């Protein structure tokens, strides 16, 4: 839909590319938002697709919902191990001078299981209930500060601010310095081409600074009684308290990126989707009790992480194609979330779907997003608080998108508010 706005002739041009030459790894396709047209072709013509040459080397694309589900739940054959390349289309540990982080999302059992279990309680529903009033109060304060009737950037003033404050709450992070979390999240996923960091060396420096900062917090918490924040939990849990330094840093970065980038972009993506589907906005306005169903639909629609990658540990057949041991396999959640054979009217944003949580954005299997209910909680609170205050969040200009094939990011979204 919005891709046609970005480039009117894109559809005809993309339709004429030979199928074997399609390379969906190019970050520019995500930045100009033509990627959906490529995935439409792959799902229709070659749902399990091999790209021989790309800037990340050869890789398989899995584009249909059911195939993605089958792969995601087969962790015995499809490994997340960092040393084999990890979980993103670009190999981890592949760039000289980059800091080699270790995190449980990029581990296989049994180590993955031990570490995940140690940090999961922080985002468990019972803990979230304790957080809800704090998040709601802080969300209200952010919204009350916003100007009415004049243009401003939604990403900076709301999306980033809200996710950052939640994350600071989760870590019990020094409040005045909470924007450091945002910066570290951006840096952790940044390549120099994005302009976020100047070089891998600069990135390394910043991440070491991040590690030192957290080390100080860790040292404080380990000497205090255990509390319900993530750092205290990791400092006191037998599974995580003796972690090597890079592993400690890696798991922290995982929690920061996992809790920051993704929710931030869903908050912005929801505003954009409602503006592109005025009938849905009208439905919401008439019945705010739809918010709890709208939230998972926003997460499907945005698909804030476009893919997860695995490495085949043995030969495997899927979709009539023979994947070989050692091959890189990319599960394109963004494509599966538009698969008509699994989701009715998948190309439409519909806020009152019957099974709105049946989407791929959180992944499935043992690596399924552990913060999924926290993400939903944040989005539900902010939409409830928005609805109380504003009759409309109107998009007033073109969104700008992130140059990334992994994080589906909106970097700027001009809006204007109408008071209720």
């Amino acid at each position, binding site marked *: 839909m919005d891709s046609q706005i970005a480039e009117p002739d894109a559809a005809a041009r993309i339709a004429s590319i030979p199928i074997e030459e399609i390379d969906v790894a190019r970050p520019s396709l995500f930045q100009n938002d033509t990627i959906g047209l490529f995935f439409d072709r792959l799902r229709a013509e070659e749902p399990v697709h091999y790209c021989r040459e790309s800037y990340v080397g050869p890789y398989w694309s899995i584009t249909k919902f059911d195939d993605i*589900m089958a792969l995601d*739940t087969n962790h015995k054959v499809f490994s997340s191990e960092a040393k084999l390349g990890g979980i993103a289309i670009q190999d981890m540990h592949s760039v000289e001078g980059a800091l080699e982080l270790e995190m449980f999302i990029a581990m296989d059992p049994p180590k993955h299981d031990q570490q995940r279990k140690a940090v999961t309680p922080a985002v*468990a*529903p*019972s803990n979230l209930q304790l957080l809800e009033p704090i998040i709601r109060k802080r969300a209200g304060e952010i919204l009350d500060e916003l100007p009415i009737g004049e243009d401003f950037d939604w990403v900076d003033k709301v999306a980033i601010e809200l996710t950052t404050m939640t994350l600071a709450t989760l870590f019990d992070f020094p409040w005045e310095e909470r924007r450091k979390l945002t910066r570290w999240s951006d840096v952790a996923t940044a390549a120099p081409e994005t302009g976020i960091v100047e070089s891998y060396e600069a990135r390394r420096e910043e991440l070491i600074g991040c590690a030192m900062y957290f080390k100080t917090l860790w040292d404080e918490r380990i000497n205090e009684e255990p509390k319900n924040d993530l750092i205290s939990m990791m400092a006191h849990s037998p599974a995580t308290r003796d972690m090597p330094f890079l592993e400690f840093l890696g798991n922290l970065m995982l929690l920061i990126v996992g809790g920051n980038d993704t929710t931030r972009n869903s908050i912005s993506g929801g505003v954009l989707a409602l503006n592109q589907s005025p009938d849905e906005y009208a439905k919401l306005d008439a019945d705010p009790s739809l918010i709890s169903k709208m939230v998972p639909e926003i997460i499907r629609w945005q698909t804030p992480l476009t893919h997860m990658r695995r490495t085949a540990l043995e030969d495997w057949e899927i979709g009539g194609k023979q994947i070989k041991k050692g091959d890189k396999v990319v599960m394109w959640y963004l494509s599966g979330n538009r698969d008509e054979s699994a989701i009715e009217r998948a190309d439409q944003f519909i806020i009152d779907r019957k099974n709105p*949580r049946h989407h791929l954005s959180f992944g499935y*299997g043992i690596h*399924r997003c*552990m913060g*999924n209910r926290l993400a939903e909680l944040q989005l539900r609170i902010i939409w409830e608080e928005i609805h109380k205050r504003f009759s409309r969040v109107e998009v007033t200009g073109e969104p700008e998108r992130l140059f990334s094939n992994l994080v589906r990011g909106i970097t700027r979204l001009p809006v204007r508010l109408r008071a209720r």
Partner: protein
Amino acid sequence: MIKITFVASDGERREVEIEEGETAREAALYNDVPGIDGDCGGVCACATCHVHVDPEWIDKVGRLMHDGMEADLLQFAEGTTEYSRLACQIPMKPMLDGLVLHLPEQQY
């Protein structure tokens, strides 16, 4: 038809009926019993249909197998016990008529 009673975390009981061959997850979803999310569609991929089988029924339902996907997923769920199962992995059959399943406070 086979009867199942779902007991919510606040103690409220809901008796529903389901056809043989459907699972306990479907029994909840088809009858709008709150407390079962079942995000993945019933293919043992997400652990959002976690239930505690009533101890009197656990032997008929069967205990969790320790080396399968169901156990791999349930290890990360909140408040698991020796009676924990995923409802999508409980196919309904006549011997389970009258089954009692307890729901956790929330799923994730």
